């Protein structure tokens, strides 16, 4: 199972989206937690700071400045000792008493300080983050009560780090989980794909293996197998019908031909020629039926059972050897550049038939003194065979149509004998071998390129 396939799979994409969504949700939950905690914390800080300021104001109001100074100067006990800082200044902001050494030069209101507070920075050494409440007293004197919130900053750092770590863990676990689930899903999809591909190539008896799949994939595989059973039944029915038609027509046609043959022995003179013409007509009809049945047989994939390991170069040499005298009658030179060996798995007779048809066509449509070249090579796990001629070629518009049954290029109808099934059979044979066939311009002439999978 390659990584590229996993990354491209639907399951993996779904998992990526899922992980992204999950991360976002985790982020939102932690952020809300943080915001709500901060809000409560600062409300509490503000309230206690404000209360402290009110308590000190009460002392000031009752005992005057001296009483307050005494309280501020006295050693504090309990929680307030760590948390609160004080400063009492006169109307010129000179220090009268307290634990802070001077009035802050720059102060600003921040959203964290809420409605009561002011935040200071770079003012009290070692305690940069402070929230303070100021209280105007008599004669322009001012009291400042401040509270440090570095514990909150620490908590903020912890929250952020927890957030980051949990996000990383979520993403890594999600991605790994996604890959594993996608990989398992892909294995089932791959099994289904492989089975469907070999069925498309004609192996209709093939079914999807149910052993490795489970859940929805098992249901899918079972349904596909049932569908294939149904298709196979229908196809067999169709083939039965067409075989019967072909057989039923071929039998009386053969009888007709045989009667003609025995008639020919009894007549003479001009009638001989008439009977001969009739015989040839019957033979060509029979040949057409045979070709049709052969194409049907190849397309049904029945011939797959006859596949064996072959060397295509031997077949090509045999085809050329068989057709060379025919070409020589038209002074056509056949050159071969055949690489050997060209190993493949296939049906020997059908491959011979296919390349014989191609060479036969090339000879038919190449004028006298022309040239035909057969080139073949094996590369990238495939075999390439090119049959190029210097003949009339096939127009671009006709290149697809020539593979259709009974299609004949208009100019060749009058020129050459044939039933228009030769290339249909070639294509059926090439398809059976999971190959491809492409026609192109050899300017002048036609170049047929056949690609077949190799076993090397």
């Amino acid at each position, binding site marked *: 199972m390659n990584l590229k396939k996993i990354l491209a799979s639907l399951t993996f994409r779904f998992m990526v989206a899922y992980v992204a969504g999950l991360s976002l949700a985790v982020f939102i939950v932690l952020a809300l937690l943080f915001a709500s905690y901060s809000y409560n914390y600062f409300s509490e800080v503000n309230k206690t700071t404000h209360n402290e300021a009110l308590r000190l104001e009460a002392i000031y109001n009752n005992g005057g400045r001296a009483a307050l100074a005494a309280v501020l100067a006295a050693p504090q006990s309990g929680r307030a000792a760590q948390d609160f800082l004080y400063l009492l200044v006169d109307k010129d902001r000179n220090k009268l008493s307290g634990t802070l050494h001077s009035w802050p030069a720059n102060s600003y209101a921040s959203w964290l300080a809420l409605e009561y507070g002011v935040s200071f920075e770079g003012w009290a050494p070692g305690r940069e983050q402070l929230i303070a409440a100021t209280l105007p007293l008599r004669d322009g004197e001012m009291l400042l009560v401040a509270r440090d919130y570095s514990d909150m900053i620490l908590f903020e750092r912890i929250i952020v780090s927890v957030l980051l770590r949990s996000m990383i863990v979520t993403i890594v676990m999600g991605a790994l989980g996604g890959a594993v689930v996608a990989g398992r899903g892909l294995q089932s999809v791959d099994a289904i794909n492989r089975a469907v591909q070999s069925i498309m190539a004609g192996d209709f008896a093939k079914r999807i293996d149910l052993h490795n799949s489970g859940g929805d994939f098992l249901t899918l595989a079972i349904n596909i197998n049932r569908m294939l059973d149904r298709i196979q039944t229908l196809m067999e029915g169709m083939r039965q019908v067409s075989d019967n038609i072909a*057989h039923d027509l071929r039998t009386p046609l053969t009888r007709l031909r045989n009667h003609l043959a025995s008639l020919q022995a009894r007549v003479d003179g001009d009638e001989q020629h008439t009977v001969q013409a009739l015989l040839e007509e019957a033979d060509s009809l029979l040949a057409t039926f045979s*070709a049709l*049945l052969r194409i049907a*047989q190849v397309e049904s994939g*029945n011939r797959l*059972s006859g596949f064996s390991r072959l060397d295509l170069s031997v077949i090509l040499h045999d085809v050329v050897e068989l057709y060379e005298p025919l070409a020589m009658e038209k002074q056509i030179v056949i050159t071969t550049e055949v690489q050997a060996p060209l190993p493949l798995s296939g049906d020997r007779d*059908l491959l011979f038939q296919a390349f*014989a048809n191609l060479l036969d066509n090339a000879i*038919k449509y190449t004028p006298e003194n022309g040239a035909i070249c057969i080139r073949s090579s094996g590369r990238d796990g495939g075999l390439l065979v090119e049959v190029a001629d210097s003949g009339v070629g096939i127009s671009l518009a006709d290149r697809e149509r020539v593979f259709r049954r009974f299609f004949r290029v208009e100019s060749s109808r009058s020129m050459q004998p044939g039933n228009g099934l030769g290339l249909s059979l070639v294509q059926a044979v090439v398809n059976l071998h999971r190959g491809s066939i492409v026609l192109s311009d050899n300017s002048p002439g036609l170049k047929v390129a056949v690609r077949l999978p190799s076993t090397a």
Partner: protein
Amino acid sequence: MHILLIEDDQGVADYIGRGLRDNRHSVEHVANGLEGLQRGQAGTFDALIVDRMLPGLDGLQVIEDLRRNGNKVPVLILSALGDVDDRVNGLRAGGDDYLVKPFAFAELMARLEAILRRQQTSSYETRLKVADLEMDMLSHRVSRAGQVLNLQPREYKLLEYLMRHAGQVVTRTMLLENVWDYHFDPQTNVIDVHISRLRQKIDRGFELTLLSTVRGAGYLLQDPGTV
């Protein structure tokens, strides 16, 4: 020749029977596989023509049973099916040749004579001779009237097959199957060209023509003096 025909299709059986009698052979016809096997065991026939699909007992089964009992009579199998596998199965069961229906009678006749001939001639012969045409199988030398002929390897194989079946008609498909060893339908009659090239080499400049074309059937190599 005395031939047993095992065929359930009355039309085909009549047609084959008539054709064989016209060629001066005697024919016995049965329509059932089981009966066919009994007749084949009991009678002395020169050859059997057996349809593949038979009521009672399958055609291939008939042949297998005959062979198991040591009966070596030449058998030609007829079949409506044309799969390669069927041909292979047919020959494996012990058939000598295989003919797909429908067929021209000339094809049946040529193949029947070929399997009869196979019984008579040994493949270990080292010299073949038709009139003054001679083939030495050991030195691969072919000569006519003492004059050595220079043949290509395929021409040699073609001539060898024709000489082994001298005096009988050989069809185009028989040549493709036996000389080229491929089962296929040539679109054009490419075999004719090979025959005419061979004829050029063996008959040109000689008074007697040994190799002739039989219209609508095939080719015939024979010594005109023996007819």
